[in-house]
């Protein structure tokens, strides 16, 4: 199988682009990191990409709202090109700051506010996959372990029950809700299921040894809880297109 051409979008201040590119590579894609300004200059790059990922970080230093300025760059600079990419059904993922960008561009519903405790928070969490229409988590039943690292990750939506009913709630935090997200929602998708946004960082759990309990739970199958599985699904979906 030829490798899936993928774009990792980075803006000024994006900082998990290399982590994300590594995860996509391990999942079978051939990612290139593209600065938003270059993508705006050559939007035809979207035609060649089978998968797009918007990486985490602090684009524009999070000035004026996390993800806001990068979302503006993409909205103004790309016009409808990103919507057209999504309409073809090809997979798009936004992680952390990328999720914030996708809500600001209205490709995903809801918004992300400051954590309810008011602080940046980095810790490992467990994510429960929900029954959803999302291609990125298709067939994943085991919980996913990976870190969060954000100050503005409180998911806000006026009708979370409706969102769940339409199969758009993809991931929830298991156990303690780390940021006050409504109904402990950690990730949502668009109605078609090909666009996923999530605050946690599955790209930082692509190897068993990255898990904080590595070496402690020897009876545990370390592969079962890898964040890498999300990227394998996305790449598989892209390969089918």
């Amino acid at each position, binding site marked *: 199988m030829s490798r899936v051409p993928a774009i990792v979008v980075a803006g000024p201040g994006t*900082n998990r682009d290399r982590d994300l590119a590594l995860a996509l590579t391990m999942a079978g894609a051939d990612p290139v990191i593209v600065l938003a300004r270059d993508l705006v200059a050559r939007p035809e790059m979207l035609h060649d990409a089978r998968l797009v990922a918007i990486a985490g970080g602090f684009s524009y230093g999070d000035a004026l709202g996390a993800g806001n300025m990068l979302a*503006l760059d993409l909205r103004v600079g790309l016009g409808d090109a990103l919507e057209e990419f999504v309409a073809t059904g090809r997979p798009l993922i936004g992680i952390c700051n990328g999720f914030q960008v996708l809500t600001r561009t209205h490709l995903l519903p809801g918004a992300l506010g400051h954590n309810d405790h008011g602080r940046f928070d980095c810790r490992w969490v467990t994510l429960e996959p929900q029954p959803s229409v999302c291609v990125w988590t298709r067939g994943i039943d085991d919980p996913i372990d990976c870190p969060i690292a954000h100050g503005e990750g409180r998911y806000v939506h006026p009708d979370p029950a409706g969102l769940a009913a339409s199969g758009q709630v993809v991931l929830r935090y298991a156990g303690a809700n780390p940021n006050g997200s409504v109904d402990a929602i950690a990730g949502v998708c668009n109605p078609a299921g090909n666009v996923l946004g999530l605050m946690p960082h599955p790209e930082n759990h692509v190897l068993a040894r990255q898990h*904080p309990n590595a070496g402690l739970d020897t009876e545990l199958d370390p592969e079962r809880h890898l964040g890498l599985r999300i990227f394998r699904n996305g790449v598989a979906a892209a390969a089918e297109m």
Partner: protein
Amino acid sequence: MSDIIFIEGDISATDLDALHRLLTDPLLQTATWEVPTGPGVEVTFLPGVTDTAAGSVVHGAGQLGIIVTGAATGRRVEFGPDVDPSLAETIVRRVVANPVIERWAIGTVDPVLHPDSSRTGKAEIVPLQGRTLDELVAIGVERKLALDPEELLAVQAHFAAAGREPTDVELETLAQTWSEHCAHKTFRAHITTDDGVERSSLIGMLRACTEAIAAPFVRSAFVGNAGIVGFRDDADGRAITLALKAETHNHPSAVEPFGGANTGVGGVIRDVLGIAHRPIAVTDILCFGPPDTPLADVPDGALHPLRIREGVIDGVADYGNKIGLPTVAGAILYDPAYTTNPLVFAGCVGEANGWEQHAGPFPGDRVVVLGGRTGRDGIRGATFSSLTMDATTGEVAGASVQIGDPVVEKLLIDVLVGAEHLFTAITDCGAGGLSSAVGEMAEGVGADVELDRVPLKYAGLEPWEIWLSEAQERMVIAVAPERLAELSARCAAHGVELADLGHFTGDGRLIVRSGGEPVLELDTSFLHDGRPQRRMTAVMPQPRRGEAAATGRTVADPAAALLALLSHRNIASKASTIHRYDHEILGATLIRPLVGRERDAPADGVVLAAPGDAEGIAIGIGVNPWYGLHDPEAMAHAAVDEAMRNVVAVGADPDRVALLDNFSWGDPRRPTTLGELVAAVDGCVAAALAYRAPFVSGKDSLNNEYTGADGQRHAVPPTLVITAVGHVPDADRCVRPVLTSPGNLLVLLGQTAPEFAGSHLDMVLGAPDEPGVVPAPDPGAPERYRRLHRAILEGLVRACHDVSEGGLAVALAELCIAGRLGAEITELPHPDLATALFSESVGRLVVEVTPGDLGRFRDVMHDDVHVLGTVQAAPWLLVTGMMPVEVPDLVAAFQGEQTESAS
């Protein structure tokens, strides 16, 4: 509290609506363009302080096609009707705003969108000839030059010989270059001790020690911005080198905690970038006054420790998180002596493949500055940090404070890493700004630069301000003219500003121009070597040592003492701070600052190994200022030992460890303070030789003083931070301080003796009149660590934890907390219970081994083992002679600190 955004321009109502939609999310916020009329206080930045959000407003409006000619941001605080306006003002002044960088007004505040842009563009002549020494000293005080009398005389003599008077640019440049901060006058001084011994300089001792060790992995030590070591090669046979550096940013953090700590991190990252390595991790060690200090005990002009702590931690987190580096190893120490003089140590590790020292600059190369624009921020930072602080420090510091912009520095990393072939020399713009960066690069070569080409944040800067500004996120590089176009294109692609200031000449003279007219003409030999060597006298400390001086302790209730130790703020959980730092980014962090089943127990060292790398590095910290109050030399030895143990405990090879030293000390012109410094350097050298672990870089911050309750000035406790970076040969075999399996054996390595001076037991129970001795160096430790490393590589070690603050009892408790398992200890390592449990003798570790492996472990360790007891499934810590303690109670005591800071 609301955010305020000020905009200026010819803006229509439609445009205002568009901006409203841009700036707010209706699901999260409400906003209005109406100017509020109700009671409130508004805060905005002082003119000249970087306002990054304002830049984003202009950028965002521009994307929407709206021309905004000026922008600023601020905050508005509204109080209930019962709050008196003057009380509201007091709350804003003491709690909300910081007068060093902000101003405020009751009602509405008018931002300064366009700071005063008038300037002469000329240098001022400062007449020195014929002045008496007293008059010279007065000029030095007035201009805050922080120069010694002998140095002022040397400057006067230099210009007398040249037959002219200096300009203000020249005088300020000499003051910065010759400052304690930049020139390390004390570490280079000629020192005579009170017993009449003539010492070589302190820096000379450390260098000679590194040369004597002659470790093959040291590539560069005590040269340039950072130390360089190479532990291994990459797949292409190129050496993988690490750049190691740790810095202090104490004085700026005292007056503006967020900005001071923020730019401290930014600065040390630039140090690593300034030696052409890609930064991969950040460390931080912080010393604060007790957070419960009564406000009445905080002197006028100083910030409360709680405010300093919040600001510093936010500042460290903000920079590391935004630039995208894991903030990993660290420590937080509390002592009343740090109340007005907090300490902030920030470190950075970088990595490169096939690094070679740049050989330039060469005559004809261009002098290029990259990155952020230059403003009035941070002027005279180097001399400021070389002065001692007093009640007016916050006021005079004013422009000494910088505000960082980590996104700009991230872009600098993106531009410079991988572009090493485009420049011939590189350095960062830190203390002293361009004067220091260009001045250092031009040493021996000479340069001719034009200040009018420096990109400015706003007009109105006089030549000396441009030349000395410590505006952040700038690098200076030397570029061959034929490479300039390629570099410019690369900068443009990343959105990084580049300016060509002039060229390196080859005649050894530094010429700085404003509007083409020279404002500075100095021989670089005078600039760098013209300073008379300081001559200083040290009174050496006379510590109590030896068995005869040792004293024991009586502990009536060891269980209660253990719980008190666990909840002591130096030992208790730092989780609430650690979670504010991103330690996961880059995916390389294998052993984190928090470990264990619930990820809430302290690690010894951290281990980093990039995904796909079989090998990694360990980072460990050693620091214990309380030993230094009794015996600075033994303290230094103990700090090196602790840093070594921390990296060995997680799997590093003790024969491949490099060290960094950071001294934060009081005013060295006080002979006893200098004596303590000399003793500590002696301890560092002896320890480094014993462990064969070379120092590769260091930094001293002197003049850290505070005014005590007696009204007298005091030095902060002698605070030496040792950072150890070691090679981990097998990243899959790293070891954690977490109990794993009931039935396994717990074994103590090392010797235990009654060594209680400066101990944490004394902090919780009170020190006796005869405190005894601090832990003495253990000559058996280096070989012990080599054997332990062999045992780890053989897979014999299931868990390992160093014994440090609080002694064996705390180490056992932390192991239980980490594993959520119990332990039964029946064989104590010393007949005296208090000594066995609470002495802080160095060189010790607790190891978990399986019963089946004990024999082999004994062999590998040459029988230097003491079996303490066993790991238990029942969650109790059972120690002979101590009341049993339930593990949940250990957890609760350990988390005391967390509850406190979360409140």
